[in-house]
């Protein structure tokens, strides 16, 4: 299960200081040309519970009246400017939050899609069933920690110990067989989404020099002795689990640093200097290194906090969406710069949606929420899933405050993305164990599962499992 890490560690241990160069050299030899069919999924997690009902607003007459009635003082348009108008191919008008202006043009270019009212579900559930507790629902709905964990694990309980992004990577990991670079990479700290049963995740913060300090020392022999010592001190088996694990982490750090600093990873596309901008720039750099790393499939995780808008929501939410859209736009441009726009798909998730009904100047924890999907392979300019009825106490309300029952399961959302990444239709259940309970494992926004699925090259025996 930890093969991935062990192979990297053995290289370092076995060969000492020169191992890293050998490691890079080996990978380079194996990957002199552009890896075929490179594909990457990039998750942007809007931490805190994105009020997506103010991210995508129905503008048709009756739904807009229902929207205004439910949202009261939170209803758009507000002081942040007019909504950005988009239309589905069927001619249904929607308004995007003005914070999304940077990616607004990508809708009409067919690169940006919206998935309506997706959320964690155990199985499809109606309002009547929910109110009567007639069918099971995810545990601890409306709780940040649980819903963050469930959205990332793809399992409607807190029992999931692996993330669905990493389980998808587990399935396609064999395509990366030549490389020991981590398949799943979080650029915002360790994330459950990236923890697999097979793949080992790595956390690569943007913008920091990770060279070990204290090596500018005279004479050089003293510096070399320190450097060698840094590797050797990690080799002794203490017999204590936590010490071993702490040493494992530092060993990985030494290896990853060599890899990232040993190659040129320059992106010319300008990125906003925000937290999310820096994260996506780091993702772009790692993608740029794909020839050196020999990667053919990668999964990335970014996040931006602050979406838990219980108060003063209007400007805060606009400002957060502005950061998201400016970063997404820059990142999309960077994929064009690298020639991989149609091989990289960016998508959003969040803890949950929020209540339509305000509480004070904010909103409370809800359930279903809309998501954005962006990339050259996305069949954009469309809205997928079923747009919910926004009436308080209406057919999609889980109660009276507009915590909307999801009309599409996160399983279906993730399965569509995973199949594009290369997970076969027969392997979807290894990633989303409950997928069989929902209508379709392919929502179509990636142009149909067949567009992404590779029939060959999948491992014959999968060790993917839920922990």
């Amino acid at each position, binding site marked *: 299960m930890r093969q991935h890490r062990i192979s990297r560690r053995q290289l370092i241990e076995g060969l000492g200081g020169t191992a890293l160069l050998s490691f890079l050299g080996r990978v380079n030899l194996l990957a002199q040309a552009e890896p075929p069919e490179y594909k990457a999924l990039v998750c942007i997690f809007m931490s805190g519970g994105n009020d997506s009902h103010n991210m995508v607003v129905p503008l048709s007459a009756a739904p807009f009246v229902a929207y205004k009635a439910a949202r009261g003082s939170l209803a758009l348009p507000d002081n942040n400017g007019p909504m950005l108008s988009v239309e589905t191919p069927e001619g249904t008008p929607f308004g995007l939050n003005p914070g999304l202006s940077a990616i607004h043009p990508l809708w009409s270019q067919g690169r940006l899609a919206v998935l309506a009212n997706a959320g964690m579900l155990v199985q499809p559930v109606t309002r009547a069933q929910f109110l009567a507790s007639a069918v099971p629902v995810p545990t*601890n709905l409306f709780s940040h920690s649980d819903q963050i964990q469930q959205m990332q694990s793809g399992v409607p309980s807190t029992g999931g110990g692996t993330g669905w992004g990493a389980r998808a990577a587990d399935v396609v990991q064999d395509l990366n067989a030549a490389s020991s670079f981590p398949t799943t990479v979080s650029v915002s700290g360790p994330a459950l989404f990236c923890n697999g049963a097979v793949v080992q995740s790595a956390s690569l913060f943007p913008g920091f020099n990770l060279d070990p300090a204290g090596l500018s020392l005279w004479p050089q022999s003293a510096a070399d002795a320190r450097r060698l010592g840094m590797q050797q001190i*990690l080799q002794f088996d203490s017999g204590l689990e936590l010490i071993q694990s702490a*040493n494992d982490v530092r060993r990985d750090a030494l290896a990853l640093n060599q890899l990232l600093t040993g190659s040129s990873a320059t992106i010319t596309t300008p990125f906003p200097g925000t937290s999310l901008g820096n994260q996506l720039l780091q993702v772009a750099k790692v993608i740029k290194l794909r020839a050196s790393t020999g990667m053919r499939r990668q999964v990335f995780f970014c996040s931006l906090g602050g979406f838990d808008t219980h108060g003063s929501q209007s400007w805060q939410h606009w400002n957060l969406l502005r950061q998201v859209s400016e970063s997404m736009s820059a990142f999309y441009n960077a994929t064009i710069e690298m020639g991989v726009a149609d091989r990289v798909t960016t998508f959003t998730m969040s803890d949950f949606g929020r209540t339509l009904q305000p509480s004070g100047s904010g909103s409370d924890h809800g359930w279903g929420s809309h998501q954005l999907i962006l990339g050259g392979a996305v069949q954009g300019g469309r809205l997928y899933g079923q747009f919910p009825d926004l009436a308080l106490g209406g057919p999609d309300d889980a109660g009276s405050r507009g915590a909307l029952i999801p009309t599409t399961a996160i399983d279906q959302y993730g399965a569509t993305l995973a199949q594009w990444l290369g997970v076969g239709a027969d392997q979807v259940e290894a990633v989303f164990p409950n997928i069989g309970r929902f209508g379709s494992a392919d929502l179509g926004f990636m142009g149909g599962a067949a567009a992404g699925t590779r029939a060959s090259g999948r491992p014959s025996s999968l060790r993917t499992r839920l922990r």
Partner: protein
Amino acid sequence: MRPVTLAALLSALCLAIPAQAQRAPGAVTSNGTPKPPGMQSPTRGGVGGAAIKTSVRITISPSTASVTLNQSRLFAATVSGTANAAVTWAVHAFGNGLTSEPSAVGSISTTGLYSAPAVMPPAATVTIRATSVADPSAFAQAVITLTPSAPPSAALSAARFLEQSSFGPTPASLARVQQIGIQTYLAEQFAIAETVIPPPGNNSMGDLRRWMLHNYSTASDQLRQRVAYALSQIVVTSGNKLVYANESIPWLRILSQQAFGNYRDLLRDVSMSPSMGKYLDLANSVKPGASGGANENYPRELMQLFSIGLWELNQDGTPVSGPTGPIPTYDQTTVQQVALALTGWTYATAPGATPRATNWEYFEAPMETRPGNHSTVEKNFLGCTLPAGQSVQQDLDGVIDCLMRHKNMAPFMATRLIRSLVTSNPSPAYVKRVADVFAGAGTGVRGDLRATVTAILLDPEARQDAASVTQGRLKEPILQSTNLLRALNGSFSSTHGLTYLFDYMAQSVLAPPSVFSWFSPLYRVPGKPLFGPEFQIYSPTESALRGNFLYTLLSSSGGDSVVDLSPFQPYGNDMPALVEATNRVLLHGRMPAALKQVIATAAAAGYDATTRIQTALYLTALTGQFAVQY
């Protein structure tokens, strides 16, 4: 016939066995003596009884040896019958009844240096094998008897206790504990006056964050500060939202004042504090009406994170198994009922201001009640009933009392506090012993934090100085850095500019990213079934940043932080003595022999005494042994 010892018999049978004598399992040696179990050669070239002809012979010296845990011993192999004298070394676990990884029985280097494990394996004998490179069918074996380490020293006992009960031992606190004993030292700490937070002159959160690190590294009431620090990760607020110092200080003062008080009082004070009122939106939460519903944020976190948790627990902290798995402690209805009970609070009225139904933010006094905003219906939750018509204060007290009575409270708090102070993976028995004390055993008072902390620190599992395999907890940046500074009689200055580095290391001081604080208490060590909350902020990137930060502390003494390396100066030219001193100060005498050798070699390459001392301390600070409190 003279009597032979078992060891002599084993060595006679197992050493220098010619390859032609090696047969498949079940075979006998050439003299017809059945081989004892565990000494048969593994299935390999000789399968099926076909002997392999070779004249290569190997002997190992010494043929038997005793090695102390954590120590090492060099073995030599002599090869005859071939010009190629090369051998490969391996540790063989067979015969040891092991099911775990071979590393549990130690490891052997390519040059024959055997390093014993730190922990005694199930069987005390280990077999090592040298195999000819020229003829892989030829090998010899030696038997090692592992002997326990010397009894833990008084210094180790004191140091371990101080790692759990302070921000790390200092030379003075180590001497004090050894002089007066743990019990008396605890009493002394309970009696020391609380360090009072000086409000920063410009109300700057940055100044408060800076001061807090200084305080952790210098305060004399170390136990109170350490417990308050632990509590700050359970009952959480964050400078991300409380952006001025005076917004956080009321909360910090409650944690510090109540660190040895009663948890009921702590929860009650925190619930009414403007800090928490702002952070989790209880301030100005009003009964359902035109402006929306009662705010559910605080009620939810109060139950989930501050008191009873999500799942029904046994007294030993294990989840109760229901027919379909764990049993949730509450549901959304509970949250809504508690939310109604907690309506009607607003910020205190500032001096000179006119009281309003919902006041503006004000942090210099506890929140005030507004009966007009309070839902007076009857509330039912967690088996408790709050009658209709109760006051704002009565309902809040009723909620806190209900939570305090909940059977989860004791095991929940025991687990959280043990993880924060002592070990990430306490045994259920340890949790139960502490939970019993929290529940009132011995004192008759439920929620007594002083008694609970005492029980945590004096428990045999905490005072177990010989490490078990899963013992300990990874130090987070604050503890690892203060541990290093204090060990070297140093501190963070009161004006340092290092706070931003803690942001990078994912432990923003007084500003955790969420109400879950910096790391989840449920996070598991990657790839292992063990809990390791602090590993959640110890990715490769963070470990690199952490290591570099420790180097900064060691090498840039003077402005931001101070360390005193003068005690090491006498050893600047004596590497074994230098490494021993480093071992004593940072690892409390637990450095494995092989590690000593590596560090001595690296340090010896230094140009001058200062460089050599820094190398020894730096490399020691980078070891997993220093990263983990165990």
